[in-house]
Every structure is written in C-alpha cells, then in structure tokens.
C-alpha cells in the first residue's frame, strides 16, 4: 500500500536540545497508531513536527500523498480557555480555518457541515452553549468535532481521554474506531492497556521511535524498545490481554 505520509530521519527539539533523534515512520491511509512512551520522550514533539508547528533540525517529511490541510488535530484539552466567550458551534467551525484566507468568513455551507458533525457526536443541544457549561467528555467531543469537520485524511490526537469521564471513554474510542474507516489516526496516550483494544499498531517514542506492528504489546516489548512505561488500564473500557508475540 502506498503510504499516506512519511517521516524520514527527523531530528527535532527545543532551544538546540534534541528530543527526537533520527526518527523515521511511515503511516498508511488506514493506520490507527497508538503513540506511547514516557513523559518527555517526544510524543507531543512528534505531533508538533507533523503539524508543522516545530521545524526539525534535520530530516524530511514526505507529504507527497497528503496535503497539510488534510490533517485534523485534537490537542490536549487543557490548552483551551473554557471561560473564553465562544460557543460550541464557533469552536467546531474553527476546524475549517485551515481552508480559508485570513479574511475568510463562515458560510451557510460551513454551518451545515458543523451541524452535521455536531449531530454525529451528539453535540447539537450544546451548539450555542459556552465551553464552561460542558462536562469533560462533552468538551472533548467538541474538540473532536473541530478536528474532523474538515474531513481530514490524518487525525492526530494528543491524550484525548485525559478529561473524559470513564463511563464515556469506551464510547469515545468507539467513535474513533468508526472514524478510522475514513482516516488514518495517530493517538498519543499513556493508557496503553485501554487503547490496545482499539489501535492497530504502536509507535514507542523515547527519543527514538520503535514501530510495533500489532495492537497488542507486552512489557517485554516495551523493554526491548527502550520505552519504560507501565501497562495500566483506566476506566471501564474492554481491553485486551497483553501478550508477547
């Protein structure tokens, strides 16, 4: 299969300090990759490089089969100011800005698209609500709606379940599984046990990247990859028994 995009020998970091060293990764159009690794290992840095928010020191990104505006992004929830006076519909619409000029305005068609995505994610009753009126799970669905309104071919998620109520976590991942039929997904998570039930492969990030081509991973695999994290599971999500392949 022709890859969707590729990272080739990328080194990147901040203020001259290298966080990712000579990293390569190919992503296929139907991939669902769990990005795991210890804190400070470079998971978010990897996403920032793909998004073009961080210029790598060396290496290249192969975007020959993917346009920059075909990437959807769901950042860590804590980044948004929930007291800011903006409605749910406005936040969802911001996902279309990548296709607009700086003076661009939202059209009726844009609002129809927003309504469609909000319908899909059960957000219609909250369209005119402020963000501070929502629960963590609802807020996360708003940001997911923003990420997918532009019908991306690659969806990047940075710890999407952090503030999601455990009772809604399974529902959230189920929605991602459905979305995966239409787009590749790369998802940063600390909850390896839980996401094992949904992802198709793992990328263990700890300075370097080790690609694990299965949705099941063991502590021994992680040790081999130099990726010292605990295999924990949170919430009520059905998860797989973790075995060595």
């Amino acid at each position, binding site marked *: 299969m022709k890859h969707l995009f590729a990272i080739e020998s990328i080194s990147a970091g901040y203020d001259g300090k290298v966080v990712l060293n000579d990293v390569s990764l190919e992503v296929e159009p139907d991939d669902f990759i769990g990005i795991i690794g210890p804190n400070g290992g470079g998971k978010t840095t990897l996403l920032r490089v793909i*998004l*073009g*928010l961080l210029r790598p020191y060396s290496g290249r990104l192969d975007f020959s089969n993917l346009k920059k505006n075909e*990437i959807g*992004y769901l*950042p860590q929830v804590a*980044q*948004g*100011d929930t007291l*800011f*006076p*903006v*409605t749910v519909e*406005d*936040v969802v619409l*911001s996902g279309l*800005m*990548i296709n*607009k000029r*700086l*003076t*661009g*305005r*939202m059209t009726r068609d844009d609002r129809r698209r927003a309504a469609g995505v909000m319908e899909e994610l059960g957000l219609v*009753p*909250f369209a*005119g*609500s*402020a963000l501070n*009126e*929502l*629960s963590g799970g609802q807020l996360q669905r708003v940001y997911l709606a*923003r990420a997918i309104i532009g019908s991306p071919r690659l969806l990047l998620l940075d710890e999407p379940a952090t503030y999601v109520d455990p009772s809604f976590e399974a529902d959230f991942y189920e929605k991602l599984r459905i979305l995966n039929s239409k787009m590749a997904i790369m998802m940063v998570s600390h909850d390896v046990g839980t996401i094992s039930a949904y992802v198709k492969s793992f990328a263990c990030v700890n300075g370097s990247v080790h690609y694990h081509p299965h949705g099941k991973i063991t502590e021994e695999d992680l040790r081999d990859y130099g990726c010292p994290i605990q295999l924990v599971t949170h919430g009520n999500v059905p998860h797989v028994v973790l075995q060595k392949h």
Partner: protein
Amino acid sequence: MGIFEYSFVLKSLLGALFASITAGIIGTYIVSRRLVFLSGGITHASFGGIGLGYYLGIDPVLGAAFFGLSSALGIEYLSEKSKMREDSAIGILWAFGMAVGIIFIYLTPGYAPNLMSYLFGSILTVTWTDILTLGIMSAALIIYTFLFYRVLLYVSFDENYARTFTGKVSLFKYISVGLTGLAIVFNIRMAGVILIISLLTIPANIIMLFTRKYQKIVIWSFVLSFIGISGGFALSWVTSLPTGAVIVFVLVVFWLIARMVKSLMKKSELSPALSQQIKNQMSK
C-alpha cells in the same frame, strides 16, 4: 443653545461614540483574553509619555502614544519569548511610567500642567484634533476587527490551535496589543489614566453575564458604553463633577443592576446545557 454649548454637546457625543467603540472592541478583547492588568500597565506607563511631552513642549498625547505603544509591544514580546513573568514586567512598567511622568512634569519650567485632567479625564480639555484622532482610531479598530474577525477570535481563544492554520499568530497578537495600547492612550484625555480601565472592563463584563457569543459582546458593550458615557457626560455637566469619575459611577451602577438581574434570572431558570445534562442523567 449657544455656539459654545452646541460645540460642547457635539464634542461630547462624538467622544462618547468613539470611546464606546473602543470599549466594545478593545474592552471585549482584553476581558476575554484576561489582559485587564496589562491594559492597566499600558495606561499608567503612558503617563511617562505625557510628562515627556510637557517637558519637550510637544502634544502630551503624542508622548503618551509612544510610551503606550512601546510598553504594549514590549510586554507582548517579553511574554511571547518567556523572558520574564508577564505580571512582573507590567508591574515594573506601571510604576516606571508614572515615575517618569512625574519627574518630567516637575522638571518642566513654568506653570505645572493640570494633571487632574489626565488622571481623571475631562471633556473640557478634549480638542477637535483629539476627536478626529479618536475617530480615525475607531475606524481602524472596526476595519481590523471586521476583516479578521474569525482569525482574531480563534487566536484569542486558543493560539496553539490557531498556529495549525496560520503562521501569523504572533503578528496578530502584536497588532492587537498595539492597537489596544493606542486606543487606550487616545481615550486618556476624556476618561483619564486612572479611570479608563473601568471603561474597558465594566461594559464587557456586564454583557458577558448574559451571552458568551463574542460578536454579541462587542456590539452590546458598545451600546451599553454609549449609554453609560453619554449619561455620565450629562450627569457631570449638571452636577459639575469630574467627567471620568461620573462615567465610572454610572457604569458601576449598571453593573450592580446587571448582577441583580442575572441573579434573578438564575433563580427562575436553568441554562439549556445544564437542563440537557440533568435530562441525560435522569434518562440513565
């Protein structure tokens, strides 16, 4: 009505109109982005420019504009580069501006200027040139906000996400904070260094009690400011009390009434989102 009174009323109404545009656009921006303290810093730092203007024999508002703009861009730069804690930088500029202003006014030969009019504002000192400057400033603010409404909204709300769709986030932040500095300075003669901050914060705060839609906050803050400022002017004229202080008094009364109305509304109904959450819980 005599020609002097007619001119005074016209100047007051135009002053109120332009100050209200500033309150609507800049007020909503600084309250939403939690930049009220920064605005206070810019306002007080610009007092240094007023003193320098007197000392050099140029229009004090020009000096204030230079100080206001420099401090606004300087604080944004320090904050952007994380070179220094933003509140510390503001605190230093705040005191430094006032100190410079007082020193230069002290050094200025001849009669000491009427500082009260700069500290507390007075429509009597506002010239037609000031009104024209305010008019141009207001037009610039309206055009800037109208043209780039969506980008400004999203950069203000979540600049990290905004960086995924534009590489000009920093540029927009600098332009916005620069316009904030200039808008504050050009309103100083009318509202005063000490009182202008309330003009920028109270109307937006009142409207935010009733809506979370940014566009509506801008428009209704403008309307409320115009009513408050015009009312303040009229009351100040009748009572011969300082204009800036009377305007703030009127706006604070509006704010108290709004709080009471909001409190009554809360008691009588629940928000749609909360109602929906309760329904969801009940249906489980």
